[in-house]
């Protein structure tokens, strides 16, 4: 036989370590970016100005009037979504539920955006 090989011979002992380390990196990144504790607050903006900041803990829904019509935002189970919006392509509605810090649903034509913010309160609700 000219050469003998198997997957085991191609992967050396240290390679297993590197592969394991790589998997750990993937898991750590997924945990950090995807399974981070859900955001605490949401910020609704209209035309660049803050329309409303609220906690995600209490379910509620709110109507945000924009240039095209009313955008309905709903909060339930510590998640938020745009329930309906007059924008033609419905991008922000189709985005569905958002719950993690940094996630946002933006209804550009109606100039309304819903953003989840985390522990660091960029807007103190007491001041509004």
């Amino acid at each position, binding site marked *: 036989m*000219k*050469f003998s*090989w198997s*997957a085991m*011979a*191609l*992967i*050396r*002992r*240290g*390679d297993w370590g*590197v*592969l394991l380390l*790589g*998997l750990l*990196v*993937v898991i750590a*990144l*997924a945990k950090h*970016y*995807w399974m981070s504790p859900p955001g605490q607050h949401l910020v609704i903006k209209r035309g660049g100005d803050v329309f409303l900041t609220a906690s995600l803990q209490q379910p509620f829904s709110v109507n945000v009037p924009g240039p095209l019509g009313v955008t309905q935002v709903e909060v339930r189970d510590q998640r938020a979504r745009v329930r309906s919006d007059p924008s033609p392509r419905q991008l922000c509605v189709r985005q569905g539920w958002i719950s993690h810090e*940094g996630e946002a649903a933006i209804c550009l034509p109606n100039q309304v955006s819903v953003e989840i913010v985390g522990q660091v309160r960029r807007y103190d609700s007491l001041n509004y």
Partner: protein
Amino acid sequence: MTVLTIKPTAEDHRIAYLAALAIALMLMEAALPSPLPGVKPGLANIVTLLVLKQYGLRTAVWVSGLRVVAGSILLGSFLTPSFMLSLGGAVASLAVLWLARGLPERYFGAVSLSVLAAFAHVGAQLTIVSLWLMPTVNVFYLSPVFAAAAWVFGLSNGLITAYLLTSHHGNSQHESAT
């Protein structure tokens, strides 16, 4: 009239030949559809790794650099953001491969080098995108997908490289390791 003749050495020929091979793989890959922009198998890295193992880092840098520049000219993306991403990924991979020289070859084969280089590649590209191209978007939100792709393709490219190295060398030095 003076005639200037440049005599290409054997190494020049080798670099040109290997770079052409890497460019062909890169072009092939560009024609393939990808589920997510930026997720590619990186088959050209097999060539980089083979060159690194057989001819050393200097030749690998040449082949990799020529591949990025000539490949982007052929794809029409020279000096565009996608060229910068390609270049950044290549520089980061080579830097990591340079650092990984110190790993004992008995335990760390082509798979290690391939996986490490793939992670460096993806890390550099995400950093470039977040710092320069899309500073307002949280691109790291997608990093687990890119890291997982780097792991899978790093492993597969590493296995291909390791296989090619053993089959070329028949019963060479690595055989005794097991």
